[in-house]
């Protein structure tokens, strides 16, 4: 908490800690803890004089050599100074960093973004250091820079990812660069090729530059996986008459982009086994509803940050396309079917309340957090049994189909779908800025990163 205060310009944030689990404790226990500890801390916070200045965390080191040592000694130094994600790193020497800087048209000290909550001004130099550490190749720099630009947009809400839900970033690379760099879109894609190291680099950037350090402002209750990096099967998309995500968002086919959003989960993978698009869309809607939370959806019906990214394999996409569905048709069909009953809303909002406040949908209505217009009767999802009239009211999982973006990737031989979920982020897409002679310089790179599976 103190580190968050420093990042916001408050050098000595006074706070009082509660020693229990306030969302679960009885009123008697809360009284006991306040009497024994928290009240005294509140009084101290209000009355104890501020005596000395504190140095903001993450003070600049620039290009100064901060350590000399063998591979093991460098790794021990980075680990003990909390500069890593716990995995071994490649030593970031000046020479290696400068090699990365050759792959961006930006100057080394140019501002790419200011990341939060650390309020650090991030430059290509900083990005390159973390890219080297992660094991990236110099050619990955343009992707890393676009990814940092994306997470630096205020609308993305990077600082909120540190919330206790363990919200993770994930990235989608579209356009020619994905293929040129060997960013995978097939079987095992996030764990293969360039995907893994680019994701790891973004995790290190979040850690070292955005200041998301465990226990400080990186509060995921069970922690975080490495940020996944996806590419789409663009050849298949064009073949079935659909478009890749970046083209849907208004970018040119030949422009390469990085898109970022967030997720609280690595989803369960459905096995669609029907070929009628209508039933297939219902199955995806079932998965969307399961991936999210009625407790979150009830209070976020006007939030563009309630997003359910859906990943479907090429075979599933082809089935929809052959059934006459465009991608937009699919998003609308899924949105129409993905709903929560008010019974689900009330159960989770009371017994598993977000931020510990036990509520029902009536409390949200009363506070103006749930628009009455979204509650509809007679719209029970297909998978629910029929109930008596008056108990069949539902709300949609998200404000509209736009919050259900579709990505086509994964094993082309399998019938799979997977849904991510966030309530804190929108998608942000940035074009990738390439250095001169890019095509020539990466001509033979793809084959070095592809696995022959």
């Amino acid at each position, binding site marked *: 908490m103190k580190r968050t205060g*420093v*990042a916001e310009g*408050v*050098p*000595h944030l006074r*706070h009082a800690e*509660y020693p229990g689990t*306030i*969302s679960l404790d009885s009123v008697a226990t*809360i009284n006991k803890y306040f*009497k024994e500890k928290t*009240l005294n801390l*509140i*009084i101290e916070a209000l*009355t104890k004089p*501020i005596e000395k200045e504190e140095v*903001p*965390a*993450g*003070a*600049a*080191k620039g290009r*100064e*050599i*901060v*350590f*000399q*040592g*063998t*591979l*093991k000694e*460098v*790794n*021990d130094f*980075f*680990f003990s100074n909390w*500069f890593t994600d*716990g995995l071994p790193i490649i*030593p*970031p*020497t*000046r020479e290696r960093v400068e090699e990365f800087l050759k792959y961006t048209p930006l100057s080394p000290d140019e501002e790419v973004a*200011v990341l939060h909550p*650390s*309020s*650090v*001004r*991030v430059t290509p130099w*900083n990005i390159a*250091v973390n890219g080297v550490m992660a094991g990236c190749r110099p050619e990955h720099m343009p992707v890393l820079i676009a990814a940092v630009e994306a997470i630096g947009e205020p*609308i993305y809400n990077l600082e*909120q990812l540190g919330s*206790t839900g363990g919200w993770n970033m994930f990235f989608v690379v579209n356009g020619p660069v994905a293929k040129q760099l060997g960013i995978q879109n097939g079987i095992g894609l996030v764990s293969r090729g360039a995907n893994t190291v680019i994701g790891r680099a973004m995790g290190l950037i979040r850690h*070292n*530059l955005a200041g998301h350090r465990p226990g400080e402002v990186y509060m995921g209750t069970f922690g975080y996986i490495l940020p996944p990096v996806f590419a789409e099967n663009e050849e298949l998309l064009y073949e079935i008459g659909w478009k890749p995500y970046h083209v849907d968002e208004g970018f040119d086919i030949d422009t390469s982009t990085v898109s970022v959003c967030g997720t609280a989960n690595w989803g369960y993978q459905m096995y669609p086994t029907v070929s009628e698009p209508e039933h297939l869309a219902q199955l995806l809607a079932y998965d969307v509803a399961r991936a999210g939370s009625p407790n979150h959806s009830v209070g976020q019906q006007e*939030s563009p940050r309630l997003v359910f990214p859906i990943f479907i394999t090429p075979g599933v996409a082809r089935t929809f396309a052959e059934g006459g569905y465009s991608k937009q048709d699919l998003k609308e069909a899924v949105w129409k079917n993905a709903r929560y009953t008010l019974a689900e809303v009330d159960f989770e909002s009371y017994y598993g309340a977000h*931020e*510990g*406040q036990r509520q029902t949908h009536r409390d949200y209505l009363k*506070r103006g957090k749930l628009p009455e217009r979204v509650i509809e009767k007679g719209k029970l999802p297909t998978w629910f049994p029929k109930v008596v009239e008056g108990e069949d009211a539902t709300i949609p999982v998200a404000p509209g189909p736009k919050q259900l973006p579709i990505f086509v990737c994964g094993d082309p031989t399998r019938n799979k779908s997977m849904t991510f979920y966030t309530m804190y982020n929108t998608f942000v897409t940035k074009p990738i800025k390439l250095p001169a002679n890019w095509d020539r310089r990466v001509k033979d790179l793809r084959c070095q990163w592809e696995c022959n599976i």
Partner: protein
Amino acid sequence: MVAPVSAKDEVYEVVSPLGEPVVKMMTMAPRLDTLEGKTIGEIWNGGFRGDESFPIIEKMLRERYPTIKLISYTDFSLVTIASLHPEKKKKTLEALRPQIQEKGCDAVITGNGC
């Protein structure tokens, strides 16, 4: 930590992975000499049972400081900013300032998170 197998005798000179914060530190208001006779506001973010804990804080503070004046969280706007758009977040926080001044607060207790 288990480090990778060391490259024999090769020594690396490495740079820092950290960057430069751009935020300017503000000058904080001096703390109060006592809470006796002071006006303290309560601003709630809508989470973690503040509607139950603020009354407990009020009761205990009044017992310890009989002349303290406490302004309940119900007299201020509810400030739930975590998932707001940055501009809306800024406006919400700016709207608090006149409320605090109008009520003559010497200090406020706010936050309530984890």
